[in-house]
């Protein structure tokens, strides 16, 4: 198997999506824990979440924009098809993104909107997952290109499926899990730290259960189902993911939160990459491959150049941002 330039760019888009899930996803997860804040330390939990999200959420959000821009630059045919068939869930997701972001900043500056922020944080990840589930299930094939007879068949049935909904819930619990694990490190008060430790453990169990439900429903997504069960890399991937999951539980149990953070990020990243690998070489199964959807070579070369130059600027800046706000003390 040789990797083409188009494969490399599809890989970069998947990297951007992974970064969005690990960073932006955790910000949504924070909103979920804001909604579920409970117990005597409810206010402290909410304050911690707010402080953790505020300096970084906008930068984390840009990963999604980068993925979309690279998708329409490098794979315009796939972008057009996604935009047509998934118009409804994508529009709802956008409204969720708008409400989450603006309600968060309004609340930070005394404008209220806490409930809107928390609710939008709950709904948006489900919609994102539904879109991914619809793609994975092969519902965006050629026949789904806005050419089916009825409105329902063309614009609703491709994504309103048990499998897509399961992927949506899976995304939600993954985001909540990431947020809870990250917040154990952010917490300064031991009691709040314990709150998020137990939340991390329980949401880790929920991730495992949703993964099982997704696997049961996965015959709806034949390509991904086959890939995850029979491909040569599948066993290795499952072992790695399992090892990461066990590490997280062990680390949470023994209160080694830094290890838990690395393990949780690795676990979720492996899940995203498992989806990508299972679909390969299809961008939109069952018929649109990376090679067929790819833009002309000159565009791909320039996009790769732009990403390379951009990365030189981006990574040091991003490192500095995370070091200042997420590192130990800034010296």
């Amino acid at each position, binding site marked *: 198997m040789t990797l083409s330039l188009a494969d490399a760019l599809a890989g970069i888009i998947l990297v951007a999506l992974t970064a969005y899930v690990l960073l932006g996803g955790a910000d949504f997860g924070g909103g979920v824990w804001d909604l579920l804040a409970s117990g005597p330390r409810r206010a402290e939990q909410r304050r911690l979440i707010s402080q953790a999200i505020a300096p970084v959420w906008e930068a984390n*959000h840009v990963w999604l924009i*980068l993925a979309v821009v690279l998708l329409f630059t490098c794979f315009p045919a796939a972008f057009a098809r996604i935009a047509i068939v998934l118009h409804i869930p994508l529009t709802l997701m956008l409204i969720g993104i708008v409400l989450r972001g603006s309600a968060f900043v309004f609340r930070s500056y005394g404008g209220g909107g806490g409930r809107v922020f928390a609710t939008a944080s709950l709904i948006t990840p489900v919609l994102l997952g539904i879109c991914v589930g619809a793609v994975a299930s092969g519902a965006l094939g050629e026949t789904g290109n806005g050419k089916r007879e009825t409105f329902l068949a063309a614009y609703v049935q491709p994504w309103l499926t048990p499998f897509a909904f399961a992927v949506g819930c899976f995304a939600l619990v993954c985001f909540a899990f990431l947020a809870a694990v990250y917040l154990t490190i952010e917490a300064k008060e031991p009691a709040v730290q314990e709150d998020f430790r137990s939340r991390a453990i329980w949401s880790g169990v929920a991730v495992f259960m949703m993964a099982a439900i997704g696997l049961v429903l996965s015959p709806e997504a034949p390509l991904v189902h086959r890939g995850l069960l029979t491909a040569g890399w599948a066993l290795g991937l499952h072992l790695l993911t399992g090892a990461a999951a066990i590490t997280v539980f062990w680390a949470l149990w023994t209160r080694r939160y830094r290890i838990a953070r690395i393990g949780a990020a690795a676990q979720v990243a492996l899940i995203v990459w498992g989806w990508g690998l299972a679909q390969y070489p299809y961008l939109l199964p069952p018929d649109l491959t990376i090679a067929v959807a790819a833009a002309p070579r000159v565009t791909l070369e320039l996009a790769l150049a732009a990403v390379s130059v951009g990365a030189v600027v981006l990574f040091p800046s991003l490192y500095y941002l995370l070091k200042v706000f997420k590192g130990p003390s800034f010296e």
Partner: protein
Amino acid sequence: MSDLLAARSQMAVSLAFHIIFAVIGIAMPVLMVLAERRWQRTGDAAYLDLAKRWAKGTAILFAVGAVSGTVLSFELGLLWPRFMQLAGPIIGMPFSLEGFAFFTEAIFLGLYLYGWERVPPRMHLLAGVLVAVSGAASGVFVVIANAWMNAPTGFTIEAGAFTHIDPIAAMRNPAALPQTLHMILAAYAATGFAVAGIHAFLLLKNRTSTFHRAALSLGLLVGAPAAVLQPFAGDIAARYVARRQPVKLAAMESLYETRAGAPVRFGPGIVIPRALSLLAFHDPNAVVKGLDIVPREEWPNVPLVHASFDLMVAFGTYLALVGLWAGWLALRRRDLTRQRRFLWAVVLAGPCGFICTEAGWMVTELGRQPWIIYGVLKTADAVTPMPGLIVPFTTITLVYCALAVIVGRLLYGQIVKSPA
């Protein structure tokens, strides 16, 4: 309402909403940085206070700009999938670069807003400078993509498909320079005068406030030069339009028939002979093409384009005159707080820059119709096949109306809280 009209309306609402926040996101960081720099040099606490308060306002506006910009990047496909399928590989380049510019903007804004106590002072100021630079760069890249829709270059069409794609040539399209120059100046003029207008109003109520005096001077420092330069940038843009998009120029000026020595018609009943030929081609006898060069179905909405253009020119001229007045007072070292008439003029100028910006975008977007890619692809052929587009249009409009009200209330609260 037809699906096409609903899609166009949704795009118009989304752009009209986003552009306010985008413009402020470009110019406000410059004001923050200037205030912080003056504080670091003079130790005058009013400037530190100003930098912190402006940073708060910027945080609110930038967040709304970031999410409404995300909506647009998706809407390009949700509403115009056929356009994106054709144009994506050609104009994806500026969008990708914009993505990275936006990234640095968001990263350093986070550092600026929350890093006052966490990073050294020099680094803090540098973060502000990087926000300002990357904000301007984002604006330039996005406008380059829009310019390509007006002046599509860098490809050939063979059997309905684009071949021989050259994304670099597409970025160097002839509309790119006139449009980006005009837009960036508009951002500084609109934001600078809006800030100056607010603080001029508060100075009129309280003449001795050093806080408002400092804010007024910085607002004018950014807004006035941009407003004075803008007519020249406008002239460059208009001459580009005259040569490359004659139908748009004809709509801007309501010129129905091609003629030599064409006049400018302004408002109700003002006609200046030969002025259009002079302005568009720097020759009073030049032939200016009228709407008659294309069939009627290829006309844009002439009354709307013409009215928007007049509105932009009228308010823009007012801003330039107030800018000159400010420069004259500054040269003579007059105390601005004693010039009540001038302060009132600045108060009136406050909203003018944003009115100009909206009107200017109406001119360039409506004036390009019925084309989405000028002369290549009709807007009607690019729209999504999904029916019922009035539903997303209504939803987005309601969400944005609610956001506008909340943002307005929050900013009002911030301004009311400002020190006397």
